[in-house]
């Protein structure tokens, strides 16, 4: 499918993530997480009005995410929120099994659901020291659904075997600029391909053999979704990582 000028990859990813979120779910995002933050706000504005938006500064259900250009952990989220529920309590909530969805990052992933956000090379003398997994190592095992998003999809990201396992197991979905993976029965399965990409392109950019039952395509953003995105994210923070 050819490029359509009405939407971009960041819009497809944001809408795909938004559609994974359900009403009444408790959902958390951390730092450097503009795209999921916008997706949460989109879901809340469209089909999930009672979704509970949790974040690091501790603002429950922030009313606005428009002034957070450089940070998804700024005070605005609390200043426009309805209650204070800070990070340490979000972690405790997840440990009690009451966090429905957590958004996490990572640099390398393999077919067995191993996630690396720590190092390239040896842990004690790394070739590249990465920022670290932040909450991943405790949230991926405890949140009901862990969603990973990554704005790069290449053979250095989706590898045969990760250099280091920051955490593993209990992933739910990985959303990339090309496709959505689902983790089931211990393996990453190709869940859907964005209509802007193709099976060939996904395979060419993935370091392991793709597993899929039947080919599905990710839903494209609807007109209503795109209109709402303009309203809730006028400064296009969802595209910061692109």
């Amino acid at each position: 499918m050819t490029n359509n000028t009405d939407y971009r990859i960041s819009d497809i990813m944001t809408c795909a993530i938004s559609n994974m979120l359900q009403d009444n779910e408790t959902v958390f995002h951390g730092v450097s997480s503009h795209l999921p933050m916008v997706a949460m706000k989109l879901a809340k504005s469209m089909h999930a009005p009672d979704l509970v938006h949790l974040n690091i500064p501790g603002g429950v259900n922030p009313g606005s995410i428009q002034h957070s250009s450089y940070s998804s952990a700024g005070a605005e989220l609390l200043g426009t929120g309805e209650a204070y529920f800070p990070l340490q309590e979000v972690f405790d909530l997840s440990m009690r099994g009451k966090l429905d969805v957590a958004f996490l990052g990572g640099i390398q992933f393999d077919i067995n659901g191993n996630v690396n956000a720590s190092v390239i090379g040896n842990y004690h003398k790394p070739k590249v020291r990465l920022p670290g997994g932040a909450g991943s190592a405790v949230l991926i095992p405890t949140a009901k659904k862990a969603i990973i998003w990554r704005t790069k999809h290449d053979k250095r990201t989706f590898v045969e075997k990760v250099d280091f396992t920051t955490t593993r197991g209990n992933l739910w979905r990985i959303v990339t600029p090309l496709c959505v993976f689902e983790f089931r029965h211990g393996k990453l399965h190709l869940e859907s391909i964005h209509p802007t990409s193709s099976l060939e392109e996904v395979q060419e950019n993935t370091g392991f053999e793709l597993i899929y039952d039947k080919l599905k395509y990710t839903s494209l953003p609807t007109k209503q979704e795109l209109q709402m995105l303009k309203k809730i994210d006028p400064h296009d923070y969802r595209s910061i990582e692109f």
Partner: protein
Amino acid sequence: MKKLKSLKDAIQIINDGDMVSFGGNVLHRAPMAAVREIARQNKKNLRLVKTAGAQDIDLLCAMGCVESVDAGFVSYESKYGLANHYRKGVQSGTIKGNEHACYTVICALRGASMNVPFMPVKGLNAGDLLVENDYFVVVEDPFSGEPVTLVKSLVPDVAIIHVQECDEKGNAIIYGPKFEDTLLSRAAKKVIITAEQIVPETKTKLNAERVDIPGFLVDSVVHVPKGAAPSSCYKKYDIDDKSISSFIGMKTKEEMLAYLKSYEVKDYIGERMGRR
């Protein structure tokens, strides 16, 4: 004893080799004036602790003050990219990068606040962090027989927390997100508060239930307006984009010394202003 001190005097209580922890989170309310003073005083072999840090950790790594960093995440946010001085230090082997899961730093500080040697942590039950780090141990729960992960408590020698308001006794009020700062004030052996404003005790007394850190836990109080800059300070100022960007671009020690020098007047201005 008088707690209100100059920035220089307050930072002098930090010894080489101390475990030091900073308040705030990534680009927000980090006690940057104190961090710059630590660098000016050329402290060595510090063991830094923070759930998620950015320029605080990066600057001290750049200036050769750091032996190890215990943190869940060390990076600027998306727009600014990675903490390159920290990275280089860990990659060259001069700094030990002890990766945590943010929550394990919180649990390790909770352990310190309760004066127990370790804390059980749920969630951390798979992967290489457990294998490679000696501060995580999996043992058998003596009650259920199930495996349980323990994290060794982290007891900072000194915690430095920047707040909007503090009185001369050290009663400190944080506006906006508190991050892990109140916990940190209970976990550390000594607490230094740097404050935008030194307010009269009568004012904190009127808002006693708003005091986040009671003065009896505090050893030093320093008046440093703009003491979190270039990170943000809620209700006071937003980040200083230019300063952060220019620092990230710096390569040589000379550039960084000049950067520290450029903040000297601002960092020491509180001493001359007195109480406001």
